[in-house]
């Protein structure tokens, strides 16, 4: 039986515009914050998982050159929006394999002003037609054969759920966004902390129906880092370190298994369902035991389908689940009390650790005004299109 693994320290920077800080400044701030929170130093860390998609190759080593070159192995990982969760999985697996007793994961991104993440702008056309790529395309397909834009892809995913089960219209998706923007007003680290009315959300700029601008995740700068430790090592540390440690009851990463249509429109459902099922089995708990969930609401249309994928509701019951008020912070299963990616922001590689930071804050009773009282168990979920899904179930330390 492999060792249990615990979060010893964790930190996220404020998300938003950091004009005067580069990726190394932000990564170092998160890493040093996590080390300080854990009350350990780089000399205690046996392995580093590092994620940064846009900017540096070899980000992990560059980070070490700022905070401590101790010669430990560095794994620079990339898994789209699940990069942070993947980096964390590396550190967890190294501990479970018995190679090290403490590890760190860091994810950072600078995305302020990046605009729409999509296929490329069209090159000048002319000359004569040349077949290119695995479809033999003579011209770019984005806009000619469907859409490659993220808001458009995830819009279709939400609309498909609506087609199958009914009840999901533009207003319902906008109300999901209204919830997350309302939640963000209590999160001082969120990139946007403004409450928005349903009318404001629905009347904002349309990006890809039914997603208007505030229903899309916010590009921003930010970093997050976590220090993880084996249970055996944890028991040798101080009472205070043990009290604040958060148990990782499940840590799962999946990729998208083949399904009809999955190469036509990305299937973000099946791999999330499999990750959730595996995570609940690993943790020995069910969705009914959860006190809060941070899920990957990269678009309002995505949040809806994940209620179902994570088994927060009956199959096909995501619309009813939302309409019951359950996922509001005063509901019976609060979802995205951080404000979610739509308001907290989505610095891609940081997201899969930042959502775990949010859960840990609540389990430690340190979430301040947005504390979910008495929280003992939480779930963090992240999706990288392509696809990769990370699910972590976290539990409060026994008193």
């Amino acid at each position, binding site marked *: 039986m492999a060792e249990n693994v615990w979060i010893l320290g964790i930190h996220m920077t404020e998300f938003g515009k950091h004009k005067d800080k580069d990726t190394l400044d932000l990564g170092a701030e998160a890493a040093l914050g996590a080390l300080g929170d854990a009350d350990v130093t780089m000399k205690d860390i046996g392995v580093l998982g590092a994620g940064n998609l846009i900017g540096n190759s070899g980000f992990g080593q560059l980070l070490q050159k700022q905070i401590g070159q101790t010669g430990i192995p560095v794994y620079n990982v990339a898994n789209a929006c699940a990069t942070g969760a993947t980096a964390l999985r590396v550190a967890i697996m190294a501990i479970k394999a018995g190679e090290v007793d403490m590890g760190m994961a860091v994810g950072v991104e600078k995305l302020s002003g990046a605009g729409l993440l999509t296929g490329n*702008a069209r090159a000048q056309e002319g000359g004569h037609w040349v077949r290119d790529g695995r*479809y033999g395309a003579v*011209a770019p397909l984005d806009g000619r054969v469907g859409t490659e834009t993220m808001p458009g892809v995830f819009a279709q995913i939400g609309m498909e759920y609506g087609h199958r089960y009914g009840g999901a219209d533009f207003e319902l998706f906008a109300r999901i966004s209204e919830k997350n923007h309302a939640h963000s007003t209590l999160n001082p680290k969120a990139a946007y902390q403004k409450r928005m009315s349903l009318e404001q959300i629905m009347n904002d700029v349309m990006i890809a*129906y039914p997603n208007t601008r505030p229903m899309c995740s916010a590009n921003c700068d930010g970093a997050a880092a976590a220090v993880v430790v084996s249970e055996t090592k944890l028991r040798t540390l101080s009472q205070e370190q043990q009290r604040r440690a958060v148990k990782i009851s499940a840590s799962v990463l999946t990729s998208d298994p083949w399904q*009809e249509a999955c190469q036509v429109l990305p299937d973000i459902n099946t791999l999330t369902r499999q990750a959730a099922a595996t995570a609940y089995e690993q943790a020995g708990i069910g969705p009914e035991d959860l006190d809060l969930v941070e899920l990957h609401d990269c678009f309002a249309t995505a949040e809806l389908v994940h209620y179902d994928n994570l088994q927060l509701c009956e199959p096909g019951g995501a619309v009813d689940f939302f309409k019951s008020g359950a996922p509001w912070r005063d509901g019976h299963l609060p979802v995205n009390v951080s404000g979610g990616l739509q308001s907290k922001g989505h610095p891609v590689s940081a997201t899969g650790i930042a959502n775990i930071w949010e859960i840990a804050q609540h389990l430690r009773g340190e979430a301040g005004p947005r504390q979910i009282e008495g929280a003992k168990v939480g779930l963090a979920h992240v999706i990288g299109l392509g696809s990769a899904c990370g699910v972590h179930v976290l539990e409060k330390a026994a008193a």
Partner: protein
Amino acid sequence: MDRIPLVDYLVLDDEPHLVAHECATCGARYFDRRSACADCSQQSFRDVAVERTGTLRTFTIVSFAAEGVHVPFVAGVVDCDGTSVRANVVNVPADPEHVTLGMRVRLTTVPVGSDSFGVEAVGYGFEPVD
């Protein structure tokens, strides 16, 4: 005038249609050049014609896209008798009053443009069945 299809899997004959690579073992269908089957990993395929009509299983109306992409346009996935096809929905106003989930649609061709040799590239889309 010479014509060239926008993609390899579009056949421009009297009755334009799409062709899928179907796994000879498990029947999974693909539109791209294949190395092996993603479902069963076997390596032999046969080409099959895809049904020309279908139902719109999902869509979005893209209002904001990369530079050079004409907006708004309707992007969607059409269920053609069990084979899902990514496509634009064309010859219909790009608004949710005229485009609805489950609507019946049929394949049609769409001009892409001509190159400097006068060769016309032709794409495809799906239009409502009246």
